[in-house]
């Protein structure tokens, strides 16, 4: 079974998830504050999270191709299908852009002309943080990503049909992949600053972009492991053995630790230097969002570290699926933690401004949906996840599950750790 087909039951489930997500979005919109802050921040959070998974899958695929990685050939098509999610990802982000131009949301402090006029710091940043840059930056950068994702996919599928003994397709893929690495490295940082870091428009951290990208990477790995486990349970991907699983598990372990390293580096340096402009970011989270702050560490470092430290847990579907679920949710939670407090703060200020009350948005505890993810957030996430999987599995069914003329195919088929 080298040709995947979405079965009817799964289709129903995924459509159901999407329906649930839509319903949750509508409900959120209906019972929201005047600026629809919860609705829009939920939308941005999920759009950024799943689009980022698409990007990082492309980036990692390019890195594996450049590093002559042989083992992953049998699961390569899953990475490919994931990278193609950048196309719907662009549409998701366009909605945010349209909302911004139409004044429909108040996600970004710097997008509010009145606020900028009264704020010298935002004025200083306005040649980067402005609606034009946000729009064209997103369009151009995601356009480049989509171009590379398509290029690599096209060559890979062509190789199936008309692969030659001199591996011409693979050699061309290698060039495109190598070229993408620096491009992806530079552009992803710019995108993270615009989409996510600028939610806290006054605050800055040089490490932030790398931190967010690694968070995406771990999410992508977890979701890829889950996808593979699902496909295997349906009898597909017989070529994927416990050895491949072990390698994926090692990546999940290693990059969970690496994520913790980046978290610690960012937190500790800001904590140690104790500069008010910087510490405000963590102070806000520790004081007002303790569940987000500590839960983030528990889900994304403590649990995967303790569970995956042993060798055998990386070789069993049960434990690996469990950890993948934990960190997938965990990194979704991490992005929630990155986005929500800043958005709520901006909304508070805007609302206070509108009501001419001055700045007395005291310190009442943040509501559910900001303080912690509520049921509506979970439902919305399931909706986006359903949409993501629907698209990705659909792409997966468009080509052979295991590439046919890949030069590393034999290595991957006889892979031993």
């Amino acid at each position, binding site marked *: 079974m080298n040709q995947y087909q979405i079965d009817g039951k799964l289709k129903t489930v995924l459509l159901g998830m999407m329906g649930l997500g839509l319903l949750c979005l509508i409900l959120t919109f209906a019972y929201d504050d005047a600026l629809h802050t919860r609705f829009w921040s939920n939308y941005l959070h999920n759009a950024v999270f799943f689009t980022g998974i698409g990007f990082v899958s492309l980036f990692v695929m390019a890195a594996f191709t450049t590093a002559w990685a*042989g083992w992953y050939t049998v699961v390569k098509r899953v990475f490919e299908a994931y990278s193609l999610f950048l196309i719907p990802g662009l549409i998701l982000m366009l909605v945010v852009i349209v909302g911004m131009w139409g004044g429909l949301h108040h996600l970004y402090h710097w997008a509010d002309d009145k606020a900028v006029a009264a704020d010298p710091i935002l004025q200083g940043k306005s040649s*980067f943080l402005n609606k034009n840059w946000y729009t064209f930056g997103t369009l151009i950068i995601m356009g480049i990503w989509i171009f590379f994702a398509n290029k690599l996919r096209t060559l890979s599928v062509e190789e199936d049909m008309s692969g030659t003994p001199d591996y011409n397709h693979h050699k061309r893929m290698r060039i495109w992949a190598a070229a993408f690495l620096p491009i992806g490295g530079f552009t992803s940082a710019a995108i993270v600053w615009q989409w996510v870091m600028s939610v806290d428009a006054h605050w800055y951290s040089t490490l932030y972009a790398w931190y967010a990208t690694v968070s995406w990477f771990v999410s992508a790995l977890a979701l890829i492991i889950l996808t593979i486990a699902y496909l295997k349970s349906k009898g597909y991907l017989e070529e994927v053995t416990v050895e491949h699983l072990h390698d994926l598990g090692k990546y999940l372990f290693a990059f969970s630790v690496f994520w913790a390293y980046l978290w610690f580096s960012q937190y500790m340096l800001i904590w140690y230097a104790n500069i008010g402009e910087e510490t405000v970011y963590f102070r806000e989270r520790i004081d007002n969002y303790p569940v987000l702050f500590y839960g983030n560490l528990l889900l994304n470092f403590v649990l995967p570290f303790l569970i995956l430290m042993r060798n055998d847990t990386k070789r069993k579907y049960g434990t690996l699926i469990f950890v993948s679920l934990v960190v997938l949710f965990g990194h979704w939670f991490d992005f929630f933690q990155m986005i929500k407090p800043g958005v709520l703060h901006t909304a508070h200020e805007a609302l206070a401004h509108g009501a001419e009350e001055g700045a007395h948005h005291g310190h009442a505890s943040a509501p559910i949906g900001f303080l912690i993810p509520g049921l509506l957030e979970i439902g919305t996430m399931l909706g986006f996840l359903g949409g993501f999987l629907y698209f990705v599995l659909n792409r997966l069914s468009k080509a052979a599950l295991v590439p046919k003329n890949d030069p590393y195919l034999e290595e991957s088929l006889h892979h031993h750790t």
Partner: protein
Amino acid sequence: MSAAVSPIREPLIQGSKTYHQITEDICSPTERTPSMTWIIAFMVASAGLALYVFCLAWTIWVGIGSWNLNRTIGWGWDITNFVWWIGIGHAGTLISAILLLFRQRWRTGVNRAAEAMTIFAVMCAGQFPLIHMGRLWLGFFIFPYPNTRGPLWVNFNSPLLWDVFAISTYFTVSLLFWYTGLVPDLATVRDRAKGLRRKIYNYMSFGWTGAAKHWQRFESLSLVLAGLSTPLVLSVHTIVSFDFATSVIPGWHTTIFPPYFVAGAIFSGFAMVQTLMVMTRKVLNLEQYVTLEHIESMNKVILLTGTIVGVAYLTELFVAWYSGYIYEQFAFYNRVMGPYWWSYVGMMSCNLLSPQIFWFKKIRRSVFWTFVMSIFVNIGMWFERFVIIGTTLARDYLPSSWSYYVPSWVEIGLFVGTLGLFFTLYLIFSRVAPVVAVAEVKQILKVAGDQYTGPNAHKAHHAKGAGVHH
């Protein structure tokens, strides 16, 4: 290790070697009288070492006043050299640990020499913090031991003390890792030797027999040590970066420092490995073990890490502007346009721009360009540390204390002298132990030897009518 090898992988061992030839080729340099090249190199290196000893004695006798540090610029060439050397000392562990975990087979050609280099570089690095403390004979104060001063413990909250722990741990673990890998190879040398030489190598090889159980434990140990060394190697330069980044000095306090320092360390470490391997393979006739394929792979790592470092440089510049914080903005303006602008230009051109020529395969596989570039990168990474340390300190918060600094002859002598120390140790190593890991090369022979894989093997198979089976 999978037996199936992709047809597009290049062989890593050339010349259709047998196991015995591998032993012969790699061990024989330790058995011959040294060549003229080696003797000349050794004389030059020991002269450097002598210079080091002299400048060290001068520093101790006269005091730190013999350096040109001043009240504003308290860290100059000393700490620049320290960070430079410790960065170089990252490649060995990276090659032996991280590339082992990533199953990059080309590491076997260079890991032994790179690990040795790591240890020597860390030894050079360790000199500078000790000397610059001034009263070298009180150096043991940095260790927490029960003392008569209270006991007044060291400040465990200081990143400088974290450095003490990081570097001594790194040195110890690297040494254990390196020597454990060396033991079977020393046994190989032992079993070829006679008389006193055999006694000496017998002592050094710990009574190794090659028993199956020992090999099994050996492999298990190597794997776990690799797993430990990987976060360790990251932590060392991370902690070095904390020396700067925990402060409130603009240009130093920035969160990207830890991963950016690590990338820079790998970058400079690989450059030094290239410098050494290009010479070693030539002098010891090891071109068939350290092939162009190895050199190309390392050049790719240099290109990659150079570009990562470049992303970090530009991120820093951008965020300095973005921060809207005038002191941060000034710090970076000062780096580019201030009195030390030339070191910034040197850093950017050697680290970010010039490695980009490695996009061309021809240049990646050219020994000449590899050597030139490796020197460039070594220089560029020295400049990077000087930019961070010297430039930043020269312009602090108080314009009245702005200053300029040029090193005295003693400081220059100490730096040149550590190069002498480094090369002296490396040259001795190349005479005493096999510079390529013998057992590991034998282990990959059947998947990476050119009679088994690559274009020659395929031709040979065709000629025999056996067909290509991959």
